[in-house]
């Protein structure tokens, strides 16, 4: 849960423009859309940290339900539009659209909040929270690193291929 929130929040924070564009589709002016996008990104990151350090706090659990509820409502409104609204849930580059996925995702998020409510009976120590935080951060950084490696291999193949084609063009 924390990894998903961190990933989404950081990707949005790195480049706010796609999220601003998504929010603008709901009729908000640009300035307000930018503020809303910043709010969403910050909330996601803050919530991820809260899940790691204070999963037992009622505020953390309620925030999860509220945030996923907001996404669900956004998905429901987006479904009523004539044209699909790009989600940009995990930053730029995704092909998803707002709609059913956000409505459906509300239930796993709700279940997760309930799991935290009834599954955690005591506040984890700061050291435990820090260990969770480090593990989650390293996990998402590694997952992103795999994507970078794949892209770098593809870019190299393109470069070699282009060089091959130039040689071919020269010889004809």
């Amino acid at each position, binding site marked *: 849960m924390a990894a998903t929130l961190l990933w989404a929040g950081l990707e949005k924070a790195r480049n706010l423009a796609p999220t601003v564009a998504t929010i603008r589709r709901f009729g908000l002016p640009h300035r307000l859309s930018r503020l809303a996008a910043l709010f969403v990104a910050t909330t996601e990151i803050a919530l991820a940290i809260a899940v790691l350090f204070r999963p037992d706090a009622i505020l953390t659990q309620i925030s999860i339900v509220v945030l996923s509820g907001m996404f669900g409502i956004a998905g429901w409104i987006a479904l009523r539009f004539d044209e699909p609204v790009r989600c940009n849930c995990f930053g730029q580059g995704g092909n998803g659209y707002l709609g059913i996925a956000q409505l459906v995702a509300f239930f796993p998020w709700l279940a997760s909040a309930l799991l935290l409510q009834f599954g955690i009976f005591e506040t984890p120590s700061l050291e435990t929270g820090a260990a969770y935080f480090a593990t989650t*951060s390293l996990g998402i950084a590694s997952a992103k690193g795999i994507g970078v490696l794949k892209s770098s291999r593809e870019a190299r193949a*393109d470069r070699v291929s282009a060089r091959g084609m130039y040689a071919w063009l020269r010889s004809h």
Partner: protein
Amino acid sequence: MVTIALIAVGVLALLVFVLFGALLEMYRDVRQLRDVVGILDRPLNVEVGAVAGTKPSKYGLPHSLDSSTSAIVLFLSERCATCRSLVAGLTKPLPLGLWVVLEAKDTAAAAAFLGTSALAGANSEERVIVDVAGSIAGRMGLNATPVGLRVEKGILTSATTVPSSRYLTSILPAPIRLGTVRP
């Protein structure tokens, strides 16, 4: 102390995550630029005319190709720079389904080319044919290299230029693997 160190590790990992994200976006931009400029693989179809539908052996290619289910006959020339880069990208032994026809002005030139290439000692000599003075290509009316001719069920079907190793790899016939052995 441990807590601070763990938090520092976490924060640094998040920073790396953000940097990786920026790098990925850059790779996407480069790919887009390459696509716009048109410097990705752009193989051209070669019109094979009357050669289509005929048996490879008719033009002096080995008879074993006539019974081949699927194969690529790659025409190379000792004088073409791309051909040299393609040969440099070949593996030992030659990939399954790949046959190489090397056009050379004489046997000495062919030997010199083969000696410096990955085709030497590839344990697949029977799939490397030396076409002295381009006699095989001449019979087919083929006057460009590198060109890949596709053989399907023992019949020559189509041909394309082969501008890169990557494209060559993509057109090679996929090997047919055995299914799971049932006891």
